[in-house]
């Protein structure tokens, strides 16, 4: 009985405590930098698309909401012909970001994507692609990759040795 009364008193005192509610549209919650929200496709420092169309994100996605088609330009640089994310199915798990070998796909701190029309939640490549490097500035996949895709010649990349002359016997 006494413990019940004590409980009631303690609950009553909460009337004067600070409230935890954040009154959303007027007050905004602080979103941390690693908040997993709207997905973007980033660009490398030179303004080229980072995505190389490797399908790893689509394979990693547990709800299969990423669809893309890879293609190549005349230099042999791969890029997605179309890239579609159905945000009405995305669960913002971030697996796609983890799977991506080129830091192309990233989740950013933005959750305000409500729509009246479900079809508007299907984002195409032009909706996803942003003019920024996102969380990994300065990274350009083709600068460290072994291949020549119009960004640098073979053997001229960072930490890359010149190609071996396979027709020579000299060490």
């Amino acid at each position: 009985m006494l413990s019940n009364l004590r409980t009631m008193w303690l609950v009553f005192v909460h009337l004067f405590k600070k409230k935890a509610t954040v009154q959303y549209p007027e007050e905004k919650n602080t979103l941390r930098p690693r908040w997993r929200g709207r997905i973007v496709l980033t660009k490398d420092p030179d303004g080229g698309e980072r995505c190389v169309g490797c399908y790893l994100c689509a394979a990693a996605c547990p709800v299969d909401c990423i669809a893309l088609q890879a293609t190549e330009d005349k230099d042999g640089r791969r890029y997605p012909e179309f890239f579609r994310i159905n945000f009405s199915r995305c669960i913002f798990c971030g697996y796609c970001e983890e799977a991506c070998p080129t830091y192309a796909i990233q989740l950013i701190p933005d959750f305000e994507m409500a729509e009246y029309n479900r079809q508007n939640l299907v984002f195409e490549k032009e909706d996803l692609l942003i003019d920024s490097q996102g969380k990994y500035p300065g990274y350009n996949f083709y600068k460290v990759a072994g291949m020549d895709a119009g960004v640098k010649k073979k053997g001229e990349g960072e930490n890359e040795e010149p190609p071996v002359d396979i027709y020579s016997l000299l060490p």
Partner: protein
Amino acid sequence: MTVMQHIWIVLGVLFVLLNIAAGLIWVERRLLALWQDRLGPNRAGPLGIFIVLADTLKLFFKEDWIPPFADKWVFITAPAIVAGSVLLSFVIIPFAPGIVVADLNVGLLFFLAMSSLGVYSIVLGGWASNNKYALLGAMRGASQMIAYEVFMGLSLMGVVMITGSFNMGDIVDAQKNVWFCFTQPLGFIIFFIAGVAETHRLPFDIPEAESELIAGFHAEYSGMKFGMFFIGEYLGITLISAMTVTLFFGGWHGPAFLPPLAWFALKTILFLGLFILLRASLPRPRYDQLIEYGWKVLLPVVLANLMITGAIALWLKST
């Protein structure tokens, strides 16, 4: 009192009561929220009071479904009984000098009779729903009512003994100098506990017990029929609060700087708050614990209270 005046009082009481029942939706949500460190509904209208409107509209426009396996007529009458019986109980409450619908000389007995009738709605509603959870809820409701009805009545007998009357007006008048909560503290506490059980509010909401029985006796109800149970519950807590005030806290009596009606309203509101605080803070006891507590603890205590009061009353009379 002329007939016209009487009709005005009846209509006025009905109007105020129904508004209180609706307004309590908002009060309860806000208070519960505040006690849980939240804000509660505060968007629609000033301080969010229009949530009442939204809620009522929702109840009216919901599909009013009668399950095909239910006993149709009983199913329909059950919600009406609870609201009706509780509203009828208000007939005997003196809100202020002269403002009482029916000044019955068996007022208290009428109240007990009406509040016992309320259990029919639970039993019939649960039975007519033809659903095992509803039936379990109804069964629990019935046994809880029987247990708590007994000493609700007994706890009031102390007051009746001191006053020597069942008339509510006389009971209030007898508290002019000292409120019965001081002379009958045990009676008050037990009446309040029984009242909480009577209105099956938390922590004694055994017949509904969402976590065990879905929604208990009203699991099959929807739309305005469910709304009637809802209103019945809110009217019930208003009734118990008003009765507690009338019987133990001096009714309309209070220092003269406020009119009697205001004193009555103020005290009643305090008790309404207490009801909501109970809901916010206490967990629900197990069903057998509740019944055991009733029969093994409260009943002996109330009987002892009754005998001691009787002895003192006799002694006072003889000296």
